[in-house]
């Protein structure tokens, strides 16, 4: 199929958000569009957002589910701030998303759902499709339900089934508008409904009906095309953050020659990690759904003591529960990895929304001086390297590592350059062999890593525990000076890792007016904002910290090279406190705590404010 009747217009980037009721299949629609876009060779970033309820009342504001994608011929790092197209399958979706649409942006609405009842439920006094409320936008309001009915007329399907296929109609239409092929979606439909041929047929017809409908719409003058982005050469796939985390873990296990032991207790947005890993039993991944988060991490400690690569994943409230046990891992110096996929707090907060407010919890959420390594992922694809790095540090340094991701990374996606597995480095372990006179506290000079003597190996019998230990023998000790030495040792084990990680090397200007220091999922927004301001000749650099504890060795001196330090965070200033406290630098924060990713504009505005001053 080709678009024949309309001329084409090429643009750099497009932002589309599919929105509708939880039951409208918007997540599916979005991810199908994403796949088609990936195939076209654009760079892309996606962001799904859905309610905390499984299925809030149909038509209610609380029940709106959305999926946003930005695709571009440039390299991009965010799903975009403002929308070019808003697909709003019902009035509630229009209500909650309209504010993000650009002036003159396109609204695609399924008229059939703009009933009186739905309008009332979502608080519209008048039908916005009918009065001139939307005059600043280009509105394509169609009765998709009727259009799909027409397309499947001969099939004798229930109305319910027909309405359920309207999402495919919308997908078809948007695919036409942006010149995406339908093939991958058609294959997907065939696969998914393999056992129900009538559904295959209905969905494909709906999809094609939408696509073909494109030609007839007057509001649309051009088919819009987006050129391929330039990528580093290699083989790519699209990847979601949580999946990339899992791939990183599996790779690390292989490179260390260990089995993975994973235990978690379901919690949004970390549950997928358990789901994904439990599917790879042929990688010898042992997964255990524990009775709670404490049992999960404690069982990981047990498995690690027995020589597995042990991992647990959770989100904020679960992380709070793990505090005491993580302290035990610190005291016993066992290598384990704790993934915290952050969500908006405090307490239960807004479980499906994103935030990065657990940094200080990761550092300090335990009793006593209890240092752990903390690293963070920057983007969905970067979750791969971050997970690998976490395992590397844990195993090579015999130390617990906390990885911070968040809801935005967890469910967002982007193209991923599939690595050459052979070229990835091996990971060393401190597994001890059979021995006489084994001492679990004999340490490697470089890392201060102690020996990992696992049960089942002759001669390594020894005891560990949470009481303070003699620095020479590992036996229980209440000696005051020994305690101080051990505390210093534990801190040193963290600090020493700074020798083992890359120094920071600012992107953009290496010194000058403004340095933006970020961490975590704000990477894309900051990078784009820095790029934009540099194009306008502002002198701006960007450092994005993967390693939050310890910091890279040259971070302090780097900060001194700029007049202003800006620290954008989706919290109220947690990295900011650390940087100020450690380096006594008058950095300022850009703090947004709305359960939403940082926008490029917000960061850009703040940079300009500082750069202009």
């Amino acid at each position, binding site marked *: 199929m080709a678009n024949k009747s309309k001329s084409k217009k090429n643009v750099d980037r497009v932002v589309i958000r599919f929105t509708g009721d939880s039951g409208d299949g918007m997540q599916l629609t979005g991810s199908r569009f994403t796949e088609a876009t990936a*195939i076209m060779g654009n760079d892309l970033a996606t962001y799904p957002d859905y309610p905390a309820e499984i299925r809030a009342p149909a038509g209610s504001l609380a029940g709106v589910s959305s999926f946003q994608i930005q695709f571009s011929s440039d390299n991009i790092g965010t799903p975009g701030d403002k929308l070019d197209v808003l697909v709003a399958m019902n009035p509630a979706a229009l209500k909650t998303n309209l504010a993000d649409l650009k002036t003159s942006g396109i609204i695609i609405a399924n008229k059939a759902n703009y009933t009186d009842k739905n309008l009332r439920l979502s608080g519209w006094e008048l039908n916005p499709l009918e009065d001139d409320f939307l005059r600043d936008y280009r509105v394509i309001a169609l009765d998709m339900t009727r259009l799909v009915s027409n397309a499947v007329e001969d099939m004798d399907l229930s109305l319910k089934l027909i309405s359920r296929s309207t999402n495919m109609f919308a997908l078809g239409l948007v695919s036409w508008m942006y010149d995406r092929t339908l093939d991958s979606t058609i294959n997907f439909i065939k696969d998914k409904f393999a056992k129900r041929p009538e559904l295959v047929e209905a969905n494909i017809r709906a999809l094609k009906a939408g696509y073909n409908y494109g030609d007839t719409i007057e509001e649309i003058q051009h088919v819009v095309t987006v050129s391929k982005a330039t990528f580093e050469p290699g083989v790519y796939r699209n990847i979601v953050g949580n999946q990339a985390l899992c791939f990183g873990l599996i790779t690390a296990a292989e490179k260390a020659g260990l089995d993975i032991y994973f235990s978690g207790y379901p919690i949004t947005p970390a549950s997928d990690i358990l789901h994904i890993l439990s599917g790879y039993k042929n990688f010898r991944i042992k997964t255990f759904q524990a009775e709670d988060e404490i049992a999960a991490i404690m*069982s990981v400690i047990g498995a690690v003591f027995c020589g597995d690569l042990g991992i647990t994943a959770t989100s904020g409230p679960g992380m709070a529960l793990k505090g005491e*046990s993580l302290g035990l891992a610190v005291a016993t110096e066992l290598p384990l990895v704790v993934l915290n996929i952050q969500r908006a707090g405090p307490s239960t907060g807004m479980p499906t929304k994103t935030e990065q407010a657990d940094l200080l919890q990761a550092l300090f959420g335990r009793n006593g001086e209890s240092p752990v390594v903390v690293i963070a992922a920057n983007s969905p694809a970067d979750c791969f390297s971050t997970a690998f790095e976490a395992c590397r540090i844990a195993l090579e340094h015999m130390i617990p590592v906390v990885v911070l991701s968040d809801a935005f990374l967890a469910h967002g996606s982007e193209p991923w350059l*599939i690595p050459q*597995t052979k070229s990835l480095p091996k990971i060393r372990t401190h597994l001890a062999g059979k021995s006489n006179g084994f001492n679990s506290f004999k340490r490697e000079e470089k890392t201060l890593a102690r020996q990992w003597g696992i049960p*089942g190996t002759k001669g390594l019998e020894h005891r560990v525990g949470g009481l303070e230990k003699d620095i020479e023998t590992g036996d229980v000790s209440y000696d005051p000076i020994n305690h101080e030495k051990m505390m210093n040792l534990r801190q040193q084990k963290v600090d020493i890792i700074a020798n083992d990680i890359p120094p920071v090397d600012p992107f953009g200007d290496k010194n000058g007016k403004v340095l933006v220091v970020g961490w975590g999922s704000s990477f894309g927004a900051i990078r784009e904002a820095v790029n934009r301001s540099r194009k306008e000749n502002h002198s701006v650099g960007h450092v994005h910290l993967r390693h939050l504890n310890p910091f890279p060795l040259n971070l302090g001196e780097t900060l001194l090279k700029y007049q202003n330090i800006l620290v954008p965070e989706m919290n109220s200033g947690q990295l900011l406190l650390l940087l100020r406290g450690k380096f006594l630098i008058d950095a300022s924060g850009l703090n947004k705590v709305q359960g939403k990713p940082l926008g490029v504009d917000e960061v850009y505005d703040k940079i300009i404010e500082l750069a202009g001053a």
Partner: protein
Amino acid sequence: MSEVSTITLSKKDFISDQDVRWCPGCGDYAILSQVQKVFPNLGIPKENFLVVSGIGCSSRFPYYLDTFGFHSIHGRAPALATGAKIANPDLSVWIVTGDGDSMSIGGNHFIHVLRRNFDLNILLFNNQVYGLTKGQYSPTSEIGRISNSTPFGSVDYPFNPPLLALGAGGTFIARGIDREQKHLQGLLYEAYKHKGTSLVEIYQNCWVFNDGAFASLTDREIKMETQLILENGKPMIFGRNQDKGLMLKGSKLEVISLTKKNSINEVMIHDEQNKIQGLLLSELTYDKNYPTPIGVLYREEKPTYETMLHNQLATALKTRGKGNLDKLFNDSHTWKV
């Protein structure tokens, strides 16, 4: 485990170099000694033992055994043991815990490990008091206990450990007494032999904070009247002259005296595998009108968690082949640049 047949170990192989730090007179000593006697005779290389504990006087146990030990945190030993057993099913894993550790803060892990039926052994040192924190009443203290935290008497009904364990789906429930050393040894063997989670509740005297709690069961003068020593397939009789028995009447147990002719035939035969019998016996725990059952109350064979899990791993390996990273990474639509 190829060395199994040739190992000869003795008690002293399991004595660690750490000073034992319990109060003089504590029942924990006797239990330690029995464990050190039994371990060398199980045919397991010493390096294949893992002893896990929580926090409490009893939980110091692993330090004193010369094998792998983990003194973890309060209440969490079963969770730690779970991970260990899944990671390495070949290990002989033993949990040592107190009544507070296992049933107060650790109650949840306790019931979950029992329901999942890992092949591991739980030694529950029940002294009916918090020893290490100096004497507060525990979830197994009798109601009305005067303690430092309940100067007017506690108003908590106690847990009945075997009944709780049965309720949770436990597959091996036994009870022993610190001072009945030979009997306890037997139970340790049985617990080891059971392929599933074995719970051995051990009545243990806390000399400092609850001395004499089990005096009626250990006092030479009267213990024959108060202990019901269970033996599988044998009638449930007790008494100085073996002259009393338990009979099932309707759905209740009754004590009968065997003086009358024939009445031995009415005595219930202990069938370890009968769950309802197990429940009936558990119900006697706090009832002063009945003897206290010791021995194996209940035993049930069913597949262990780790066996089923490792079977899944093996099947996956067979049907899908060894996991391959490159295949994994390319398992979705890819494109080349």
